[in-house]
């Protein structure tokens, strides 16, 4: 009798230990990436499944772009990936110029290239600062934001605004770069690499950081390609694919730079890839500063007053390499002044969909490190 009771109790104990708990990692949380909600299923401390729930910042950028004219839609593109707004404007403006068969002067294209690379450095600096904050380190946040302020002052001098510019026009850029801004850029690139060494050493010399990020959040190359993941995550998983080298646009085939790649595919590899990308961007900016020709910066044919608007027919999609991955805008025009369909291919949307594959089998404490290494920006994911 006692043996039967003993077996019954043991059985119930085993059954109760098999339950899987669901935890809500809600839309507001300390890891400052915006409004992401993840429903995590835990078996003890091991993650069994992690499903992201998005849509908390759905701001109808596509529908509103289809209700206005072509130049008006640029303001919605700015606010997609708000930390690197010029990359977003570039993707839109290149497509619309193809639709309208616009000729853009050479000086404008070189200016665009230089500012887009500076914006890439600014975006990676925000990532570095907030990644340190997620891992519990407060110092890199202040160092990175101090460097970023110098870039924002350059943009303020050129375009009048710090964060959201509305500077790239259809047919060129709205205003020229001044000699003062050129001297500010020269001063920045001269000593940026020393500062980057300082920031990198804070992370690399910290034993805890390296232990927390090596072999965590691995994504294989086949999985990355199947999920549509592009950008630094794909390059850290072993595939050398960068649109600036493989399918060049603007004048990327006329400057020298490398594409950093790693084989491991974990969080530490993504960190190293982004740091190296910042160094290559500085190299590009230095070369472009010597190569900018003089001339026109705006094709005046496209600066028509409000009453006479620009018409476009056909469809096109020009992909560009933004700091998060492949970004492009697919525009269908039907011959009128209003676009018929505007569809935004956002890299963070595809990158975030690979979270279940990245987190399965790891512990709950690895969740913040993995999600922050994807670098999602929610203006882009939810549009």
């Amino acid at each position, binding site marked *: 009798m006692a043996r039967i009771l003993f077996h019954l109790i043991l059985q119930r104990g085993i059954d109760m230990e098999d339950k899987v708990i669901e935890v809500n990692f809600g839309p507001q949380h300390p890891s400052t990436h915006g409004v992401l909600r993840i429903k995590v299923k835990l078996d003890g401390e091991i993650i069994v499944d992690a499903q992201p729930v998005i849509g908390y910042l759905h701001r109808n950028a596509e529908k509103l772009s289809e209700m206005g004219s072509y130049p008006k839609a640029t303001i919605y593109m700015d606010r997609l990936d708000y930390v690197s707004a010029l990359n977003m404007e570039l993707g839109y403006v290149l497509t619309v110029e193809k639709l309208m068969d616009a000729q853009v002067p050479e000086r404008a294209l070189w200016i665009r290239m230089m500012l887009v690379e500076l914006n890439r450095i600014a975006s990676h600096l925000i990532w570095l600062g907030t990644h340190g904050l997620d891992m519990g380190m407060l110092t890199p946040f202040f160092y990175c*934001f101090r460097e970023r302020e110098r870039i924002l002052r350059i943009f303020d001098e050129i375009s009048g605004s710090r*964060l*959201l510019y509305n500077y790239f026009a259809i047919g060129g850029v709205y205003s020229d770069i001044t000699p003062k801004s050129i001297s500010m850029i020269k001063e920045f690139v001269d000593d940026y690499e020393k500062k980057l060494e300082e920031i990198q050493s804070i992370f690399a010399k910290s034993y805890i950081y390296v232990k927390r990020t090596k072999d965590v959040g691995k994504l294989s190359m086949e999985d990355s390609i199947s999920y549509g993941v592009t950008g630094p995550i794909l390059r850290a998983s072993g595939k050398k694919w960068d649109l600036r080298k493989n399918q060049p646009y603007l004048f990327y085939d006329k400057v020298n730079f490398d594409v950093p790649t790693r084989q491991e595919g974990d969080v530490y590899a993504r960190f190293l890839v982004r740091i190296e990308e910042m160094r290559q961007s500085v190299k590009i900016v230095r070369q472009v500063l010597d190569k900018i020709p003089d001339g026109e910066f705006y094709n005046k044919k496209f600066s028509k007053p409000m009453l006479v608007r620009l018409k476009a027919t056909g469809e096109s999609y020009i992909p560009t390499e933004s700091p998060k991955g492949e970004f492009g805008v697919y525009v269908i025009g039907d011959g009128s002044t209003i676009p018929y369909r505007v569809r935004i291919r956002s890299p963070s949307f595809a990158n975030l969909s690979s979270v279940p594959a990245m987190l399965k089998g790891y512990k709950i404490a690895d969740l913040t490190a993995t999600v922050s290494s994807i670098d999602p920006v929610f203006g882009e994911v939810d549009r």
Partner: protein
Amino acid sequence: MSDSILMTTLDEAMNWGTGKSLWPFTFGLACCAIEMMSAMGSDYDWARFGSDVFRDSPRHSDLMIVSGTVTKKMAPRIRRLYDQMAFPKFVISMGACASAGGPYVRGYSVVDGVDQVVPVDVYVYGCPPRPEALIQALKQLQDRIVAGKVKH
């Protein structure tokens, strides 16, 4: 009891204490959150005004800065977070989207301003507002609290 003459100095002291040490609750939704983070950085130094502790839990903080667009899916959760804060609590609505809808006001899933969800004390305009504008809003709120004009 707090209107009697015996309590006026104590009231003033408490208002001064509340106003000069507001602890913000980071509620960064969209682009304005990046300018709020820049205001926290070393160039614009928000910490010298007494708010150097950014608390991540609503139960520990008394100032909520709503920075970014409020969508219909997110609005009930903002209300829930506001209800979890303890009195006295204050709200700054930062940016054009949180004040009145911003560039997205004609959208089908955007709430026209956060004042339809929670009561707001100070509005900051701009898209996005410069960090100096946010610091000016903080100073205005501090002056109103210290003068005793905000009853919470």
